[in-house]
Structure formats: C-alpha cells, structure tokens
C-alpha cells in the first residue's frame, strides 16, 4: 500500500470519527437530535453507495431512492408480517435491493451511460405508484402505512430503552449508534472494494470503456456489479431508515428522494469517499436552513437545484475535490519532504 493511500485511509477514518463525535455532542439531550443523526447516517450510506456506481464507475443512477424504498419495505414487511428480528432484515434488504438493481441494470448497462440514467429515472418516478398498487396489497398494503411501532421484533419496540453490552440506551440513541456503526463498516467495505482489483476495473470503465475493454475488463459485468453493490447499499440505508421511523409508507420514499441523493453525491464530490459526510449533511440539514429564507414549499428544491447546477459548473469535483485542490500545494510539500 502506498503512503498516499495510507494517508487517505487515515483521513477517511478521522473524518468519520469526527463526524460521529460531532453527532454525539450536537444532538445532546434533544431526543429528536438522535433521530436526525440516524437519518444523516442513512443518507451517508445511500450516498456512499451512489458514489460507488456514479463516482467510481461513471454510471449515473437517478433511482437510488427507489432502491431505498425496496430495502425499507423489505424490512417493514419481514418485521411486521413474518416476525423476523429487525437486525436480520438488514442483510436481506441489501440482497433484495441488490437483486432489483441487477434486474434494472442488465437491460440498461449494456448500452451507453445515458440509458441507465433514463431507466433509473423511470424507476424513481414509478416506485411510489408501484408501492400503492392494489394488486400488491398482500405485500405492500397498497400504499397504506406499515406500522412497526410496538412490534416485539423491532429494537426497543420502537420506543423502549435498549440494553446492550451491560449499558442501557434510549431507543433514539440505540438507532443512532446502530446506523453509524453499520455506516462505518460499509465505509470500510467500500474502501476495500475500491482499492482492490474491482475498484481498478470500475475506474477503468469510468475513464474509458474502450480502453477498459481492450485491457480485458468485461465492461458490462463490472458495470452491473458496481450497480448491484450500489443498490444494496441503498437498500441497507432504506432498511435503517424504516427501523428509525418504526413505520414505512410511500411518502417516506418520494420520487424526488433519488434526485436528492444525487445532489448529495455531487456535493460530496464524485469519486471521493470522505466527502460523502459533507454531502449527507448538506442533504439532511438544508431543508432546516431553507425554512429561514422562506416557508414556501419550493424553497429547499430551489436551493438543491441551484446548488447542483453551480457545483456542475464551478466545482465539478465537489467539496472534497475543491478542498483537495486548495490544499494540494501543502500536502504535496509535506509528502515530498517525507519522501526525501
């Protein structure tokens, strides 16, 4: 492992730890604060997943909110109907969402990146209607809320204190630590995938499909693999989202959620792992700040849209890339000195 990747890994770990510590002190006694902190974690996971396929593989997904919905509904249905312990539903949600990503990915990923954007955009807008479909009533309750509150299979039944390793935590805190614990694991997993052979293949596909094919990289396979992994991440995010809310309904996963995640990924900087925290924070807290400008309905969207356009035009590498560029003389100096 080169020195630079070690430095990057250290920066990533420090940034994440800083985020957790910050979140530990920020919400303080405010019980809502921990739920928002947990939601920040779910955005973090979803944007991390989106970044694997969009930032590292160069395939744009406009439908990750739909995969979150699939993961969330998997958890909700398993917990409420089949009495499965909530923690065990998380890997199942990842599998189901990953499989859905595979199914949507296969027709689109043989073609140019534009077609994946088209197909996933369709999926994003179709998802709320699919969840409310009468014929799926047996599975999704056709759009009516699936309530998990007071379910014995949900941690703390959705409101009680949780006992863990001899400590007692309020429900909100438990959800918060669960989300961020999984987020940390998923960050390490993403880092391991991306620094190894698959990561190199992903980046080769992103930089030039033609060159990648000539070098023996099976482009369609790696694109589909990246997309399925990425959808699985979104599925886990959706699952945790439902556990934190203790219910699931189509309104929790609107069509615009997919686009919001794209805003987060762009703010994070496509192809940067630690910027994901900044992207998640932007998406989570912007609506709270937008209320100060005006209480009108379209304000958060207006700011999201303007931010997305400005980032594409002015800062195509996102917050992470901008900072890296600003700091590059310093880091290069330090790096070359330590080499000599």
């Amino acid at each position, binding site marked *: 492992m080169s020195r630079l990747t070690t430095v990057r890994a250290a920066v990533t770990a420090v940034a994440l730890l800083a985020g957790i510590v910050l979140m530990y002190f920020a919400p303080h006694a405010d019980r809502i604060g921990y739920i928002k902190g947990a939601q920040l974690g779910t955005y973090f996971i979803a944007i991390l997943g989106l970044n694997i396929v969009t930032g590292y593989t160069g395939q744009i997904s406009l439908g990750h909110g739909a995969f979150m919905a699939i993961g969330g509904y998997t958890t909700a249905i398993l917990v409420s109907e089949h009495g499965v312990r909530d923690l065990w539903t998380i890997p199942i949600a990842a599998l189901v969402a990953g499989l859905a990503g595979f199914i949507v990915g296969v027709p689109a990923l043989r073609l140019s990146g534009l077609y994946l954007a088209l197909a996933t*955009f369709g999926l994003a807008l179709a998802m709320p209607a*699919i969840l409310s479909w009468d014929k799926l009533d047996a599975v999704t309750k056709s759009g009516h809320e699936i309530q998990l509150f007071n379910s014995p299979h949900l941690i703390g039944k959705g409101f009680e204190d949780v006992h863990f390793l001899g400590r007692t935590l309020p429900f909100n805190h438990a959800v918060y630590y669960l989300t961020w614990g999984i987020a940390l694991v998923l960050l390490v997993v993403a880092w391991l995938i991306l620094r190894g052979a698959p990561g190199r293949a992903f980046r080769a596909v992103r930089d030039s499909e033609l060159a990648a094919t000539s070098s023996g990289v099976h482009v369609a396979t790696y694109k589909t693999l990246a997309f399925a992994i990425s959808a699985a991440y979104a599925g886990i995010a959706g699952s945790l989202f439902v556990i934190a809310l203790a219910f699931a309904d189509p309104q929790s996963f609107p069509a615009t959620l997919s686009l919001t995640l794209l805003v987060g990924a762009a703010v994070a900087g496509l192809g940067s792992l630690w910027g994901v925290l900044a992207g998640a924070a932007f998406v989570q807290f912007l609506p709270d700040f937008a209320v100060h400008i005006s209480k009108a309905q379209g304000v958060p969207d207006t700011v999201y*849209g303007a*931010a997305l356009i400005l980032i594409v035009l002015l800062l195509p590498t996102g917050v992470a890339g901008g900072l890296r560029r600003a700091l590059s003389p310093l880091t290069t100096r330090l790096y070359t000195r330590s080499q000599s």
Partner: protein
Amino acid sequence: MTEFLQQVVAGLASGSIYALLALGIVIIYRSTGIVNFAQGEMATFTTFIAWTLVDHGLGYWAAFPLTLLIAFAGGIALERTIVRRVEGGPVITAVILTIGLFILLGGLSNWIWKAEVRSFPPDRPFPTSAWDLGGVAISKQDAGILAITVVLVVALWALFQLTKLGLALRASALNPTASRLVGIRVGWMLALGWGLAAALGAVAGLFTAAASPPLDPNMMRPVLIYALAAAVLGGLESPVGAIIGGLAIGVLLNLVVTYDTHIHLDLDRMRIPIAFLMILIVLLVRPSGLLGRSVVRRV
C-alpha cells in the same frame, strides 16, 4: 369496436401531447447529445407564466403565442448561459445539470406560484361539444389538440427541410466542426434547438393543463416519463420516431386503462410503471428503437 375506436381517438389526443414533449427531447438530443430531463419542468414553468398572463387580463388565445415566444427566448437563454458549458463534455455532467434544472424549476414553480389549486385555462379553450363520426364521438378539444400538433409538426418539418436556417440547424447537429468552417454559427444553432424544444414543451404544458385541470406544479412529471418512453421507443434521435412513439404510448395507455374495467388490475394508477416497463423492454429488445440507428464505434 366503436368503444375501441373511441379510445384510440382519445389516446391519439393525449399521445400528441407526449409526442410534442418527446419531439423537444429529440431535437435537443440530436443537436447537443443531451437528454433534457428538465423538459417537463420547463413546460410546467411556462404554463404558469401563461396563467400569470391570463390572470393579468390577457385572453387565453392571446396568451398562447406569447407564452410560446417567452418559452422560446427562455430556452435560448438557458442554452447560452448554462447548458453550453457542459456541451461536448462527459454524459454524466450533462445529466446532472439537466437534473439540477429539473429540481430548480420544479422548486421555483412551487415557490413562486405556491402549491395551491388553480383553475386554468379559465374557460375551456376548445368547445366542449363533440362531433359524431359513425358512432365514434370526437370531442372538439381532442380534435383541436391533434390539429394544432399536426400544424406544429408540419411547420417544424418545413423549417428543418425547406429553409436555409433549417439546413444550418441540421448541419450543426451532424458535424459541428465542418459547419463552423463553412461559417455557420453553431453555438446559436444549438441555442435555437433549445428554444424550439422549450416552445414545443410550452405547447405540451398548456395542453396538459387544458386536458386535466386544475393546474398543478407537478403535472408534467408523468408526461415527462411518457415522453421519454416515446423518445426511447422512437429511437431517441428520430423526430418521426418520437411522434410515432408518443401517439403509440398515448393510445396504449388509454386502451390499457379502458380494458382494465374487465380485468381489474388497477392499471389506472400504474401508467407510470407501464411507461417505465416499456423503456426497459425497448432497451432489452431493440435499444436503437423503432427508427434509430444502432451506434457502431470504430476502434
């Protein structure tokens, strides 16, 4: 049979709205290689402008061409100021930009005109009566929408095929470098493409509002999906394909929903998923669409 024909006619009318929006998407795609995901929200925005004009005392049919002009200018301005910076760049940047426009314009529509119920157009723009054609009732609104669509398509065809400007437009789309060398101002030709697409979108928006009042800031989202499905079905770069695709999807959705009364699949609510499924099937079976060319890359 009469029932069937009846539904085909109604489907053609709504299909022509999808065809107009799809045509705008194809014009932009041909000239700049960008799929404009903001096409529907642009149409909503201009429809709200039309509402404002009518609200200030203008008649509907006076506001109509004025709105098209405003949309045309707005499309040109958008291309000249923002979109041109991502032209020729990676697909991903262009997609993110038009998604940014989608979110921004949707937000602005909700912000400026608040999300309240508005009846628009104020009076029915077309007579509410219908003609009877051998048992098939053709509403004057459907006929009017179809007729205006036909006029617009013929006018566009004439512009592209019969005028020198159209020649320059086609040349810029086909080979920008060579066009620049023979003195065509390619940048402005691309901007003109965006202007035309925005104007077509405005017509689609006005007709959508007329066909399904009241005015709703999210009204074009389903229409955009139908139009994208139409464009993909037609081959994404074929204007004729977009029109055929739009009409086909209009008729298909109408028939599916009508015959659902016999099979009870609640398909009325499943229109968007059906369009999504169509996109997937076309990509799986015939990615180049009905009339598109398959892309062959030279190594």
